[in-house]
């Protein structure tokens, strides 16, 4: 450990300075400090001598209902006690990073959001390789693209097993479509908007007839186009390739052209006007993931929103992985718990009780799942729409610098939406991304 070496050097230095300036009261510290030094040597955990009983700490975020599943697990496995700690999403990831960086304090099992997983791409030594504990056997349980995101580039290392996912669909306001004289059933809308050109022409039509904009803002349009690209910002060697292919630039240009025709709004996500727009129908569609249902239900009346697939495919936003940090002294037990938690049976329960969308395709065949319908969205079988989207997601390598590049591009898109020059913003964003990447 680098930091521990540095701390030792520091303590030796401090000690000698204190000895030289021989002050009466200062003797206390020197003895204090040596005791610190002693503790550096023994970094033993708390449950060293017990063989049978194991206590696993588990960090999770959000409203998952995992506490109920855990009860069930502990009943079936009486030698395992699981201490669940629910945290705010950002807080969990900050605390996990601090703990992994300092090499102490991480839990036995940590739920890591898919974006955050990229951060640890080159820190395999901070996690147990779940393939060492039998993860390869359950590969067939999961969708390919979800599985691959949990692996390293060459597939030799498994960071975590996937829990839920966030396949993206097109939510739309039936009333706005009707106001524009268009059909509004999911089948008809799906038929009407098969390509992004269709999306644009429908947007023009809605704008002409109702004066309303097609969607809330630029961010989700850009995301939708980006997520359908077979290559994103990096190749598997983590080299920036965003300028070597046209996919991302096309996504950018498409978004810009909608902005320039005034077909999309400039409402930022998670602002009061965004929530309010959901209820009032200020915009016709929302290109969001499965979990966005809950947000829409919170802010709109039932019956006006419906769901269909995105034009030209789908993407993914959100979802998590259960990882076992390298510090854990009970990786076998931790893995067994992770495997159980992410198994199709448990995923089905999480879906039915908490709406967490499963990453295990076998669940999609389950009759309970197939029949799952939602009156809020006009009684359509929502689970089927989402599972169709989940299976349409293209696997793609993201890379540890993914969100650095994504952030600057999103900023560029929002600047263009506020009136900036698209080409200048693009070039500035690429420059800024390169500068940030060179520092990492």
């Amino acid at each position, binding site marked *: 450990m*680098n*930091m521990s070496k*540095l*701390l030792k050097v*520091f303590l030796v230095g*401090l000690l000698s300075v204190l000895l030289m300036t021989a*002050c*009466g*009261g*200062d003797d*206390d*510290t020197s003895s*204090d*400090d040596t005791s*610190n030094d002693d503790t550096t040597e023994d970094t033993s955990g708390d449950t060293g001598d017990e063989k049978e009983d194991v206590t696993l700490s588990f960090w999770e975020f959000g409203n998952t209902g995992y506490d109920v599943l855990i009860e069930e697990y502990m009943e079936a496995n009486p030698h395992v006690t699981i201490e669940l700690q629910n945290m705010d999403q950002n807080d969990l990831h*900050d605390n996990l*990073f601090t703990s*992994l*960086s300092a090499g102490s304090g991480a839990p036995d099992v940590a739920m890591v959001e898919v974006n955050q997983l990229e*951060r*640890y791409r*080159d*820190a395999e030594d*901070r996690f147990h390789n779940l393939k060492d504990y039998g993860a390869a056997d359950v590969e067939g349980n999961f969708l390919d693209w979800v599985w691959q995101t949990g692996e390293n580039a060459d597939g030799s290392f498994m960071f975590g097993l996937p829990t839920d996912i966030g396949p993206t669909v097109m939510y739309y306001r039936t009333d706005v479509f009707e106001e524009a004289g268009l059909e509004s059933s999911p089948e008809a809308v799906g038929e009407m908007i098969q390509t992004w050109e269709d999306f644009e022409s429908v947007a023009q039509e809605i704008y002409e007839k109702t004066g309303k904009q097609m969607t809330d803002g630029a961010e989700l349009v850009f995301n939708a186009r980006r997520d359908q690209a077979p290559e994103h910002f990096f190749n598997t060697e983590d080299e920036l390739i965003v300028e070597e292919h046209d996919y991302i630039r096309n996504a950018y240009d498409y978004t810009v052209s909608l902005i320039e025709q005034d077909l999309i709004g*400039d*409402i*930022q996500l998670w*602002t*009061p*006007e965004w929530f309010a727009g959901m209820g009032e129908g200020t915009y016709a569609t929302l290109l969001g993931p499965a979990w966005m249902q809950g947000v829409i239900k919170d802010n709109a009346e039932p019956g006006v929103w419906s769901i269909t697939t995105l034009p030209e495919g789908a993407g993914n936003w959100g979802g998590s992985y259960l990882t076992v940090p390298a510090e854990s002294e009970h990786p076998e037990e931790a893995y067994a718990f992770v495997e159980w938690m992410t198994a199709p049976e448990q995923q089905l329960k999480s879906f039915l009780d908490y709406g967490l969308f499963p990453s295990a395709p076998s669940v999609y065949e389950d009759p309970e799942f197939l029949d799952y319908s939602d009156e809020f969205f006009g009684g359509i079988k929502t689970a089927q729409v989402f599972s169709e989207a989940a299976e349409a997601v293209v696997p793609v390598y993201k890379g540890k610098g993914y969100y*650095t590049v994504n*952030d600057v591009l*999103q*900023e560029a898109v*929002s*600047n263009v939406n*506020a009136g900036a020059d698209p080409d200048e913003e693009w070039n500035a964003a690429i420059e*800024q991304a390169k*500068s*940030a990447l*060179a*520092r*990492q």
Partner: protein
Amino acid sequence: MKKSLEEKKKTARTAYLFISPFFLLYAVFGLFPMLFSFYLAFFKWNGLSEMTFVGMENFNFIFTDPIFYEAIKNTFIIGLLGTAPQIIVGILLAFALNSTLIKFRNTFRTMIFLPYVTSIVAVAIIFGVIFSNQEAGFINYILSFFDIEPINWNIQNWPVKITISIMVFWRWVGYNTIIFLAGMQSIPNALYEAAKIDGATVWQQIRLITIPMLKPTITFVVFTATIGALQLFTEPLVFLGRNLRQEGITMVAYLWKDAFVYNAFGTASAAAIVLFFIIIIFTGVNLLLTNRIGRTKKAR
């Protein structure tokens, strides 16, 4: 007064004992992190992998980064707009709250201090609503009466800086008022009474009595407010989110983003060192300027 050598030594020993807790605690909890940052400035480190020595490269990165200069510029602009007026308004508020003529002083005091205790989450939401980019946003709506087009408060260059400055001013003016208020206690009321008999106006009282007598407190506030302004971080983070757009990024926000968003701890540490020197220089200059206040008897 005669003091024996022995007595002097004894006093000194007691004095060292009195100040030692700070230094001991700092040695244990503050010094290592500080030296660690200093050390990191010459390494490339993402927080997880091995550190690699890169010499002065990190400094090279930040000095050739246009956003670093933006961050310096923003810090000074927001400091000037958000912090400097606090000192003037803080003195005026404290003077008013100290005046024996005023009833309900306690109520006013409590209310003026409220922004300091109001949760930052609430502040974020409310500023987001007041300074909404939408036409129906509070400020944009008012501006529409003057035929001003809706402003993108959290995107456009000056609106971003102005909004953050207002937030800073609003959150901290009550805090400085309380400090000034404590400083004003050492000014004997008799001085004001005498001035009133001589027919001095309120303005003259402030200029000729309050400000010169308050000089130690003013020095204190200028010192801490300068440091606070140069280390400004929470308000831009809350208003702009983790992305910390370059229109409103401050120096500390810049190094925080480098470290905790980009995982570039090396350049973050280099930026911290540069910032440290800027703070030393600028605080020194400000203290020199403050020192002249009493002499010219003129508040800036």
